């Protein structure tokens, strides 16, 4: 009986791909795998225990060997044992899992930031230098990368199994995740939250490069405009500079250096200014009025795309002085189009 070629190929294929675990390609992966092994052992142990009990009792107390059953009420000692021991194991798993959770979702402070926009059915990555990628992400080796992600339409989920990271990409709110790749290579990027017809097509590749290669790649793929530069143009064209210009008479608060500071709002709340806050303040300004200012800012809901918002956020993030804002005011007053920023400004960051 000869194996048919299809079956043979299938077997070969199987032997080649007989992996039980994805690659460990990030600093988080070993931690996740450790917990996984523990849990697998727990499952094997538990299942074996139950199976052994069932098999041994079945063999020992079958009708042939034990024609009459001995009635037993129960045993407090035994029952307490199998309440306490599983509980203890589960609590260990709980603490372990919680620690892992915070390791995965707490980015280190030195992480570089890349923006991700999810939409039906593609991933768009935006590097601060203005490099855009679709369904692909290039990252350097050994450098913590934080992803600030948002969805334009429905829930998506950014999942990289080889890094053991995953996070929902939500419409209307930034969510973040971080990783530090430890192996050069290409890794699957999946959307794991069902998002409509082409859900299974919303996949891409993450390419991990050595820092040198990454630098080369950045230089080759630049579009010439950094996110902050795009943001600066938006800042002028949306008229943000007419209020937020840092002059004494300005109707809006000074935005220079505002990122990362603590703001006091009119309702007395203290708020840390981060990406999410900036985005929200542009779209829903009335809930985010800085103390001492009137709630006169209009909403930009529906006027800015998520990409535009990212540009603006990135611009405000990097705004250390109001010099350039006032420059745009001057140009605007002179009736010229907004200036193209000289290339060296790309190195600001």
């Amino acid at each position: 009986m000869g194996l048919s070629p299809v079956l043979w190929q299938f077997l070969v294929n199987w032997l080649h791909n007989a992996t039980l675990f994805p690659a460990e390609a990030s600093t988080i992966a070993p931690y996740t795998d450790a917990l996984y092994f523990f849990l697998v052992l727990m499952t094997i142990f538990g299942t074996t225990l139950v199976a052994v009990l069932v098999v041994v009792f079945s063999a020992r107390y079958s009708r042939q060997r034990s024609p009459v059953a001995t009635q037993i009420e129960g045993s407090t000692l035994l029952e307490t044992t199998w309440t306490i021991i599983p509980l203890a194991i589960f609590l260990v798993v709980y603490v372990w899992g919680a620690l892992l959770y915070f390791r995965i979702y707490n980015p280190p402070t030195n992480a570089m930031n890349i923006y991700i926009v999810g939409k039906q059915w593609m991933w768009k990555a935006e590097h601060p230098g203005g490099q855009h990628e679709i369904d692909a992400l290039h990252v350097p080796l050994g450098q913590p990368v934080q992803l600030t992600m948002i969805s334009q339409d429905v829930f998506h989920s950014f999942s990289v199994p080889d890094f053991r990271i995953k996070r929902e990409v939500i419409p209307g709110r930034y969510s973040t995740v971080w990783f530090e790749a430890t192996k050069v290579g290409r890794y699957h990027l999946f959307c794991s939250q069902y998002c409509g017809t082409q859900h299974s097509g919303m996949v891409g590749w993450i390419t991990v490069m050595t820092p040198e290669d990454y630098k080369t790649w950045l230089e080759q793929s630049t579009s010439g405009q950094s996110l902050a530069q795009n943001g600066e143009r938006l800042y002028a064209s949306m008229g943000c500079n007419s209020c937020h210009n840092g002059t004494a008479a300005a109707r809006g608060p000074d935005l220079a250096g505002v990122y990362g500071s603590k703001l006091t709002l009119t309702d007395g709340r203290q708020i840390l200014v981060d990406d999410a806050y900036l985005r929200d303040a542009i779209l829903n300004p009335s809930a985010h009025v800085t103390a001492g200012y009137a709630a006169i800012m209009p909403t930009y809901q529906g006027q800015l795309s998520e990409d535009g918002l990212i540009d603006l956020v990135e611009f405000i993030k990097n705004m250390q002085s109001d010099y350039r804002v006032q420059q745009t005011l001057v140009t605007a007053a002179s009736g010229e189009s907004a200036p193209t920023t000289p290339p060296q400004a790309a190195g600001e960051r």
Partner: protein
Amino acid sequence: MDSALATTDPADLHAEQEHGHVSLPQHRHHFETVEQQREAGSFGMWLFLLTEIMFFGGMFLAYLLYRNWYYPAFVVGSNQLSVRIGTFNTMVLITSGFCMAIGVWAAEVRKRSLLTAMLVTTTLLGVLFLSLKYDEYHEKYELHHIPGNNFNVSMFTNPAGYGIKEAPLPPDMAQKTQVFFFLYFAMTGMHALHMIIGLGILCWLIPRARRGDFSSGYVAPVENFALYWHFIDVVWLFLYPLLYLINRHPMH
């Protein structure tokens, strides 16, 4: 469903004692005693009300969340509702609940005409409530305050233009009045739907009450319906302050 909850009065309990199958037509064979049947009926009704608590609970949860998020919009939206009609309607409902309670009493002491009168009053008050509610809905419709594609926020961004003495809402917050109005319509609409169902059952009860079905010790349908009716009242007692009275002092 109410006929399934049918029970008999304990007054006839002794006649039933020697395990007869059925002396009253309402006694169903699978119950050993009429008392058992009556308690089962009322317990079933209470369990049904339990599910109603959870049903409205989901919407109250949504209300709580969005009220915290969009408080100014909720205040303005709430002030758009007529506190007069709202308060009057609350009183109407309480009165109808009172009539219903008297009706149950009348059934228990076997006063047939009082029971019928009370059920009719309850129905009329229910209709009055619904027509006032319709009036309110209609006003909202004309003002384009029904959430959806035709929703119009200009009254909230520019209250002076409508002769309303109120601070204008910033446009982003004004949009959120839609959330308030959606909750308003969803909650009062679900409440009204329950009332309509209640009125339907009343229309079925009234002729039976006139016929004297409930005046011979068999009060379970009236009693269980009263539970339902009172429950709807109680829901309204929460809807009224939460929707109509968020902030009625414009000096805020």
